[in-house]
């Protein structure tokens, strides 16, 4: 054991290593490996059937599509919100800042039923949309709204520190040199916040792919139309189709791991590039 570590007077290496690794294995690694084994240990046609039958395909398209649209909306508005929070002093700024964390703290089932109440036909906003022929709850739009709610903090909290680091003098210099506000935004601000925006987008997107509680109430869960991938896993489990559920879960796990790996790699790469410039 002592060969493994740097010589140290501090005790507890063996104890904490043993405990941490065993606990991690029992709670996380062994259970997660069950999905991988169950998912892989089935004949390919069966796996293909579970993952690519028309109903599941429709769920994939909806899940990825809604997560993409919701995260795109959040990139635009999240940037505006983060910018306002960092650069402007206004009454209620701290309240606005605190509200951003509500989706982190509010249980998803609660946000789910609250959003449904608001966007249903007789709800506060649903009532206004109905005469326009827009159906928000029990439609893909409702799913986008729920995912936008869930994803907003990821983007705002990723972009905020980058804007804090941005020196206002640089944009001022650009405007003094004759650039319009739009040009200053496009040529000075956007390039600086772009890596954070991309990281925030991917993190929010990955989170939205697996979201369940806030979506299932507002979506209406109609097969082929408003059924998300997470719900299909639950449906398969209820039919005791463990292999099918594992196949879908495996594909979802791989997607979100790849996305989050890409974010971490991107961040590592950009800090390395910055260090090299310095």
């Amino acid at each position, binding site marked *: 054991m002592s060969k493994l570590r740097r010589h140290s007077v501090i005790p*507890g290496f063996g104890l904490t290593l043993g405990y941490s690794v065993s606990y991690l294995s029992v709670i996380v690694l062994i*259970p997660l490996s069950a999905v991988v084994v169950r998912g892989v240990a089935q004949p390919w046609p069966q796996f293909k059937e579970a993952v690519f039958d028309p109903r599941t395909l429709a769920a994939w398209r909806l899940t990825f599509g809604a997560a993409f649209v919701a995260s795109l909306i959040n990139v635009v508005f999240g940037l505006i*919100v983060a910018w306002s929070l960092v650069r402007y002093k206004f009454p209620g700024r701290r309240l606005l800042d605190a509200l951003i964390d509500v989706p982190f*703290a509010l249980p998803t089932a609660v946000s789910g039923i*609250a959003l449904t109440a608001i966007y249903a036909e007789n709800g506060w906003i649903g009532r206004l949309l109905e005469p326009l022929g827009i159906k928000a709850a029990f439609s893909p739009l409702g799913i986008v709204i729920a995912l936008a709610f869930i994803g907003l903090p990821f983007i705002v909290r990723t972009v905020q520190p980058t804007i804090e680091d941005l020196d206002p003098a640089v944009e001022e210099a650009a405007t003094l040199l004759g650039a319009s506000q739009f040009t200053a935004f496009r040529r000075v601000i956007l390039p600086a916040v772009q890596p954070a925006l991309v990281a925030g987008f991917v993190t929010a997107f990955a989170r939205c792919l697996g979201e369940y*509680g806030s979506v299932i109430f507002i979506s209406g869960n109609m097969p082929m139309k408003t059924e998300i991938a997470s719900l299909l896993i639950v449906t398969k489990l209820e039919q005791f189709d*463990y292999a099918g559920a594992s196949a879908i879960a495996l594909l979802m796990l791989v997607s979100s791991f790849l996305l989050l790996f890409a974010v971490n790699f991107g961040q590592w790469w950009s800090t390395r590039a910055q260090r090299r410039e310095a």
Partner: protein
Amino acid sequence: MTRRVLIGISVAFVGILILLPLIAVFIEAFRKGIPFYLAAISDPLAISALHLTLVTAGISLAANLIFGLAASWLIAKFSFPGRSLLLSLIDLPFAVSPVISGLIFILLFGAQGWFGRALTDRGIQIVFATPGVILATVFVTFPFIARELIPLMQEQGTEEEEAAMLLGASGWKTFRRVTLPNIRWALVYGVVLANARAMGEFGAVSVVSGHIRGRTNTLPLHIEILYNEYNFSAAFAVATLLALLALVTLAAKAFLEWRIRVEEA
């Protein structure tokens, strides 16, 4: 001009998307009056759901707190091969969706699971029972506390502990008298965040609970059942308890962030 427009857009977007649902919870809860509200939250099924929620959160937090302390001590005080791998593995549960966090325990302990047969033969039930609910909650809250402690302890280094050891303190005493006071606020911070997730978890718990009323229902599952029975006002009444928990969590979070800043300055 730009300033006004941008502030206006921010306030409107956050107001509609986030504040409105929060307000809706309270308004819908009191739609049928205060007596109905009080009856809904004091219903025996609501009370048993609250009880299970508290027990589950308590056990999960204790388990993950011990792990968080062990893992952060290991990672911050020693350097060994595989340290960064261990660090990334701790974050794994954050990348796993709620439903899958429940599914994995069904695959292990369900009737057709790896250990399913062995358990049924001995009359032990894990999924569709309280242990399953607790396991799923431990899994989803796994990284919270460790994640707050590790960077802080890494930053603090080992000098203070080394000094204490050289002055003759035992390892346990060093931990209790030197390390613990240094990390206490970050520790409380991690516990607060983990607690919010533990009490509010829905997807993972929903999959493993089996929805047995009065036995394996936590507060979020109780809300779902009431809602699906079209008992909306009662569902929102119970939801106010969790919404209040969220508000208390945010207030505690703001206080602790302020405390940690003061401590660092």
